[in-house]
Protein backbone atom coordinates (compact mmCIF):
# COMPACT_ATOMS: atom_id res chain seq x y z
CA UNK A 1 0.00 0.00 0.00
CA UNK A 2 1.04 3.56 -0.52
CA UNK A 3 0.99 6.06 2.34
CA UNK A 4 2.44 9.53 2.72
CA UNK A 5 5.23 9.89 5.29
CA UNK A 6 6.44 13.42 6.11
CA UNK A 7 4.99 14.69 2.87
CA UNK A 8 6.52 12.07 0.54
CA UNK A 9 5.04 8.89 -1.02
CA UNK A 10 5.99 5.75 0.85
CA UNK A 11 5.47 2.08 -0.07
CA UNK A 12 4.68 -0.29 2.80
CA UNK A 13 3.50 -3.91 2.84
CA UNK A 14 -0.19 -4.45 3.43
CA UNK A 15 -0.90 -4.75 7.15
CA UNK A 16 2.03 -2.49 8.06
CA UNK A 17 1.73 -0.56 11.31
CA UNK A 18 2.93 2.82 12.51
CA UNK A 19 6.05 1.04 13.82
CA UNK A 20 7.00 0.01 10.28
CA UNK A 21 6.81 3.59 9.04
CA UNK A 22 8.90 4.93 11.95
CA UNK A 23 11.56 2.21 11.63
CA UNK A 24 11.91 3.01 7.94
CA UNK A 25 13.05 6.50 8.93
CA UNK A 26 14.95 6.04 12.18
CA UNK A 27 16.06 3.44 14.70
CA UNK A 28 15.17 5.92 17.47
CA UNK A 29 12.01 5.64 19.48
CA UNK A 30 12.62 8.21 22.20
CA UNK A 31 12.39 11.85 21.18
CA UNK A 32 10.08 10.92 18.30
CA UNK A 33 6.33 11.45 17.95
CA UNK A 34 3.85 10.33 15.31
CA UNK A 35 0.56 11.67 14.02
CA UNK A 36 -1.62 9.78 11.55
CA UNK A 37 -4.20 11.87 9.71
CA UNK A 38 -3.78 14.67 12.25
CA UNK A 39 -4.16 12.53 15.39
CA UNK A 40 -1.29 11.68 17.74
CA UNK A 41 -0.52 7.96 18.00
CA UNK A 42 1.21 7.36 21.34
CA UNK A 43 4.39 5.29 21.35
CA UNK A 44 2.72 2.39 23.14
CA UNK A 45 0.21 2.07 20.29
CA UNK A 46 2.64 2.14 17.34
CA UNK A 47 2.78 -1.68 17.07
CA UNK A 48 -0.96 -2.10 17.25
CA UNK A 49 -2.00 0.74 14.95
CA UNK A 50 -2.34 -0.45 11.34
CA UNK A 51 -1.91 1.98 8.47
CA UNK A 52 -4.31 2.19 5.55
CA UNK A 53 -3.90 3.24 1.92
CA UNK A 54 -3.31 7.02 1.58
CA UNK A 55 -2.82 7.63 5.31
CA UNK A 56 -0.91 10.82 6.09
CA UNK A 57 1.85 9.98 8.55
CA UNK A 58 3.93 12.66 10.26
CA UNK A 59 7.06 11.64 12.17
CA UNK A 60 8.46 14.51 14.21
CA UNK A 61 11.40 15.17 16.46
CA UNK A 62 12.93 18.11 18.31
CA UNK A 63 15.30 20.39 16.40
CA UNK A 64 17.07 23.67 17.18
CA UNK A 65 14.54 26.45 17.37
CA UNK A 66 12.94 29.25 19.32
Amino acid sequence: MRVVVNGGPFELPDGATVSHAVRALTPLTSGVAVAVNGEVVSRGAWDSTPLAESDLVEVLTAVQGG
Partner: protein
Amino acid sequence: MTETADDVFVLGGEKFGSRLIMGTGGAPSLEVLDQALEASGTELTTVAMRRLDPASRGSVLDLLRARRIKVLPNTAGCFTAGEAVLTARLAREALETDWVKLEVIADERTLLPDPIETFDAAERLVADGFVVLPYIGDDPALARRLEQAGCAAVMPLGSPIGSGLGIRNPHSIELIVEAATVPVILDAGIGTASDAALAMELGCDAVLLASAVTRARRPDLMAAAMRSAVESGRLARQAGRIPRRRYAEASSPARPA
Protein backbone atom coordinates in the same frame (compact mmCIF):
# COMPACT_ATOMS: atom_id res chain seq x y z
CA MET B 1 9.18 39.65 45.86
CA THR B 2 12.08 37.93 47.58
CA GLU B 3 15.10 40.16 48.00
CA THR B 4 17.63 37.58 49.06
CA ALA B 5 20.66 35.99 47.48
CA ASP B 6 18.69 32.82 46.82
CA ASP B 7 16.16 34.61 44.64
CA VAL B 8 14.39 31.63 43.13
CA PHE B 9 12.31 31.88 39.98
CA VAL B 10 9.17 29.73 40.19
CA LEU B 11 7.52 28.82 36.91
CA GLY B 12 4.83 26.21 36.43
CA GLY B 13 5.42 25.01 40.00
CA GLU B 14 9.14 24.37 39.39
CA LYS B 15 12.08 26.33 40.78
CA PHE B 16 14.85 27.76 38.65
CA GLY B 17 18.09 29.41 39.74
CA SER B 18 18.50 31.15 36.38
CA ARG B 19 16.12 33.74 34.98
CA LEU B 20 17.57 33.45 31.51
CA ILE B 21 15.63 31.10 29.23
CA MET B 22 17.48 30.27 26.06
CA GLY B 23 16.34 29.36 22.58
CA THR B 24 18.44 27.08 20.40
CA GLY B 25 17.62 28.48 16.94
CA GLY B 26 20.23 30.16 14.80
CA ALA B 27 23.42 28.60 16.17
CA PRO B 28 25.94 27.70 13.43
CA SER B 29 26.67 24.32 15.05
CA LEU B 30 25.76 22.19 18.05
CA GLU B 31 29.27 22.80 19.45
CA VAL B 32 28.81 26.57 19.38
CA LEU B 33 25.34 26.16 20.88
CA ASP B 34 26.69 23.97 23.66
CA GLN B 35 29.34 26.54 24.62
CA ALA B 36 26.73 29.30 24.59
CA LEU B 37 24.30 27.33 26.76
CA GLU B 38 27.03 26.61 29.27
CA ALA B 39 28.06 30.27 29.43
CA SER B 40 24.44 31.40 29.78
CA GLY B 41 23.82 29.35 32.91
CA THR B 42 20.31 28.62 31.62
CA GLU B 43 18.19 25.86 33.14
CA LEU B 44 15.33 25.99 30.61
CA THR B 45 15.73 26.00 26.84
CA THR B 46 13.37 25.86 23.88
CA VAL B 47 13.37 23.49 20.93
CA ALA B 48 11.12 23.30 17.87
CA MET B 49 9.28 20.24 16.52
CA ARG B 50 9.95 19.34 12.89
CA ARG B 51 9.69 16.40 10.52
CA LEU B 52 12.38 13.86 11.31
CA ASP B 53 15.24 14.03 8.83
CA PRO B 54 16.94 10.60 8.56
CA ALA B 55 20.12 12.30 7.27
CA SER B 56 20.59 14.67 10.23
CA ARG B 57 23.29 13.86 12.75
CA GLY B 58 23.63 15.01 16.34
CA SER B 59 20.68 15.98 18.45
CA VAL B 60 19.91 19.12 20.35
CA LEU B 61 18.06 16.87 22.81
CA ASP B 62 21.23 14.93 23.66
CA LEU B 63 22.99 18.20 24.30
CA LEU B 64 20.27 19.48 26.64
CA ARG B 65 20.12 16.15 28.44
CA ALA B 66 23.90 16.15 28.99
CA ARG B 67 23.70 19.65 30.49
CA ARG B 68 20.59 18.77 32.56
CA ILE B 69 18.71 21.66 31.01
CA LYS B 70 14.92 21.32 31.04
CA VAL B 71 13.54 21.20 27.52
CA LEU B 72 10.72 23.54 26.53
CA PRO B 73 9.13 22.63 23.20
CA ASN B 74 7.61 25.45 21.21
CA THR B 75 4.96 25.55 18.51
CA ALA B 76 6.99 27.78 16.19
CA GLY B 77 5.82 27.70 12.60
CA CYS B 78 2.14 27.23 13.48
CA PHE B 79 -0.39 29.65 12.01
CA THR B 80 -3.58 28.24 13.54
CA ALA B 81 -4.75 27.07 16.95
CA GLY B 82 -5.35 23.60 15.52
CA GLU B 83 -1.77 23.28 14.27
CA ALA B 84 -0.40 24.54 17.59
CA VAL B 85 -2.49 22.10 19.65
CA LEU B 86 -1.37 19.15 17.50
CA THR B 87 2.27 20.27 17.69
CA ALA B 88 2.06 20.60 21.47
CA ARG B 89 0.58 17.10 21.75
CA LEU B 90 3.31 15.68 19.52
CA ALA B 91 5.94 17.44 21.64
CA ARG B 92 4.41 16.01 24.80
CA GLU B 93 4.62 12.55 23.28
CA ALA B 94 8.17 12.93 21.96
CA LEU B 95 9.73 14.82 24.87
CA GLU B 96 7.61 13.61 27.80
CA THR B 97 6.84 17.10 29.02
CA ASP B 98 3.51 18.88 29.29
CA TRP B 99 5.21 22.28 29.12
CA VAL B 100 4.80 24.22 25.91
CA LYS B 101 5.85 27.63 24.65
CA LEU B 102 2.73 28.48 22.67
CA GLU B 103 3.63 30.44 19.55
CA VAL B 104 1.04 31.03 16.83
CA ILE B 105 2.24 33.53 14.28
CA ALA B 106 0.16 35.74 12.03
CA ASP B 107 2.47 36.04 9.03
CA GLU B 108 5.98 35.12 7.88
CA ARG B 109 7.20 38.66 7.34
CA THR B 110 6.72 40.01 10.86
CA LEU B 111 6.36 36.72 12.78
CA LEU B 112 4.05 38.68 15.08
CA PRO B 113 1.81 36.48 17.23
CA ASP B 114 -1.84 36.05 16.25
CA PRO B 115 -3.79 36.93 19.41
CA ILE B 116 -7.05 35.19 18.41
CA GLU B 117 -5.47 31.87 17.45
CA THR B 118 -3.11 32.06 20.45
CA PHE B 119 -5.98 32.52 22.89
CA ASP B 120 -8.00 29.72 21.31
CA ALA B 121 -5.01 27.34 21.48
CA ALA B 122 -4.22 28.38 25.06
CA GLU B 123 -7.72 27.49 26.26
CA ARG B 124 -7.58 24.09 24.57
CA LEU B 125 -4.10 23.28 25.87
CA VAL B 126 -4.89 24.34 29.44
CA ALA B 127 -7.96 22.10 29.32
CA ASP B 128 -5.71 19.28 28.08
CA GLY B 129 -3.40 19.63 31.10
CA PHE B 130 -0.53 21.56 29.56
CA VAL B 131 1.63 24.15 31.30
CA VAL B 132 1.07 26.87 28.74
CA LEU B 133 3.56 29.70 28.21
CA PRO B 134 2.11 31.92 25.47
CA TYR B 135 4.15 34.26 23.29
CA ILE B 136 2.12 37.44 22.77
CA GLY B 137 2.36 41.05 21.68
CA ASP B 138 2.96 43.69 24.35
CA ASP B 139 -0.79 43.82 25.06
CA PRO B 140 -1.82 44.12 28.74
CA ALA B 141 -5.45 43.16 28.01
CA LEU B 142 -4.51 39.94 26.20
CA ALA B 143 -1.99 39.11 28.93
CA ARG B 144 -4.74 39.39 31.53
CA ARG B 145 -7.14 37.23 29.50
CA LEU B 146 -4.50 34.52 29.04
CA GLU B 147 -3.71 34.55 32.75
CA GLN B 148 -7.43 34.16 33.52
CA ALA B 149 -7.53 31.28 31.02
CA GLY B 150 -5.00 29.43 33.16
CA CYS B 151 -1.67 30.07 31.46
CA ALA B 152 1.37 29.55 33.71
CA ALA B 153 3.09 32.73 32.49
CA VAL B 154 2.74 35.38 29.82
CA MET B 155 5.54 36.11 27.39
CA PRO B 156 5.20 39.51 25.72
CA LEU B 157 7.62 40.46 22.97
CA GLY B 158 10.00 43.39 23.20
CA SER B 159 10.00 43.64 19.39
CA PRO B 160 9.70 41.16 16.50
CA ILE B 161 11.52 37.82 16.68
CA GLY B 162 15.15 38.09 15.62
CA SER B 163 14.90 41.85 15.03
CA GLY B 164 17.28 42.85 17.81
CA LEU B 165 15.25 46.06 18.21
CA GLY B 166 15.05 45.67 21.98
CA ILE B 167 12.00 46.74 23.99
CA ARG B 168 10.01 49.14 21.82
CA ASN B 169 7.26 49.78 24.33
CA PRO B 170 8.58 49.60 27.88
CA HIS B 171 5.41 51.25 29.18
CA SER B 172 3.25 48.33 28.00
CA ILE B 173 5.67 45.83 29.52
CA GLU B 174 5.39 47.70 32.84
CA LEU B 175 1.59 47.62 32.62
CA ILE B 176 1.66 43.86 32.02
CA VAL B 177 4.03 43.37 34.98
CA GLU B 178 1.89 45.52 37.29
CA ALA B 179 -1.25 43.51 36.60
CA ALA B 180 0.13 39.98 36.32
CA THR B 181 0.06 37.41 39.10
CA VAL B 182 1.83 34.83 36.92
CA PRO B 183 5.45 35.29 35.80
CA VAL B 184 6.09 37.72 32.95
CA ILE B 185 8.84 36.59 30.59
CA LEU B 186 10.16 39.06 28.04
CA ASP B 187 10.33 37.06 24.85
CA ALA B 188 11.74 38.18 21.50
CA GLY B 189 13.51 41.26 20.24
CA ILE B 190 16.47 41.33 22.63
CA GLY B 191 19.52 42.61 20.73
CA THR B 192 22.18 43.06 23.36
CA ALA B 193 22.82 42.90 27.09
CA SER B 194 21.29 46.28 27.95
CA ASP B 195 17.95 45.13 26.47
CA ALA B 196 17.91 42.11 28.77
CA ALA B 197 18.82 44.26 31.77
CA LEU B 198 16.03 46.69 30.91
CA ALA B 199 13.50 43.84 30.76
CA MET B 200 14.42 42.85 34.29
CA GLU B 201 14.49 46.47 35.52
CA LEU B 202 10.93 46.86 34.19
CA GLY B 203 9.95 43.99 36.48
CA CYS B 204 9.91 41.00 34.17
CA ASP B 205 10.55 37.73 35.99
CA ALA B 206 12.73 36.26 33.26
CA VAL B 207 14.01 36.81 29.72
CA LEU B 208 13.83 34.40 26.78
CA LEU B 209 16.24 34.99 23.93
CA ALA B 210 18.00 33.10 21.16
CA SER B 211 19.18 35.09 18.15
CA ALA B 212 20.96 37.75 20.21
CA VAL B 213 23.28 35.00 21.42
CA THR B 214 23.29 32.40 18.66
CA ARG B 215 23.83 34.95 15.87
CA ALA B 216 26.37 37.08 17.77
CA ARG B 217 29.93 37.03 16.47
CA ARG B 218 30.92 35.26 19.70
CA PRO B 219 27.87 33.41 21.02
CA ASP B 220 29.67 32.22 24.16
CA LEU B 221 30.67 35.77 25.13
CA MET B 222 27.21 37.17 24.43
CA ALA B 223 25.66 34.35 26.49
CA ALA B 224 27.86 35.34 29.42
CA ALA B 225 26.89 38.98 28.89
CA MET B 226 23.18 38.09 28.92
CA ARG B 227 23.59 36.06 32.08
CA SER B 228 25.17 39.06 33.85
CA ALA B 229 22.63 41.47 32.39
CA VAL B 230 19.66 39.44 33.63
CA GLU B 231 21.20 39.17 37.08
CA SER B 232 22.07 42.88 37.16
CA GLY B 233 18.65 43.94 35.96
CA ARG B 234 17.00 41.76 38.57
CA LEU B 235 19.13 43.21 41.36
CA ALA B 236 18.45 46.76 40.16
CA ARG B 237 14.71 46.07 40.15
CA GLN B 238 14.88 44.78 43.70
CA ALA B 239 17.13 47.66 44.81
CA GLY B 240 14.68 50.28 43.50
CA ARG B 241 16.02 52.91 41.15
CA ILE B 242 16.13 56.59 42.07
CA PRO B 243 13.50 58.82 40.49
CA ARG B 244 14.33 60.63 37.27
CA ARG B 245 14.74 64.39 37.87
CA ARG B 246 14.76 67.30 35.51
CA TYR B 247 17.61 69.07 37.37
CA ALA B 248 20.64 67.97 39.29
CA GLU B 249 20.54 66.91 42.89
CA ALA B 250 23.95 67.36 44.51
CA SER B 251 25.45 64.28 46.05
CA SER B 252 27.93 66.32 48.12
CA PRO B 253 26.99 68.77 50.90
CA ALA B 254 25.89 72.12 49.50
CA ARG B 255 28.95 74.31 50.20
CA PRO B 256 32.49 74.03 51.49
CA ALA B 257 32.66 75.29 55.08
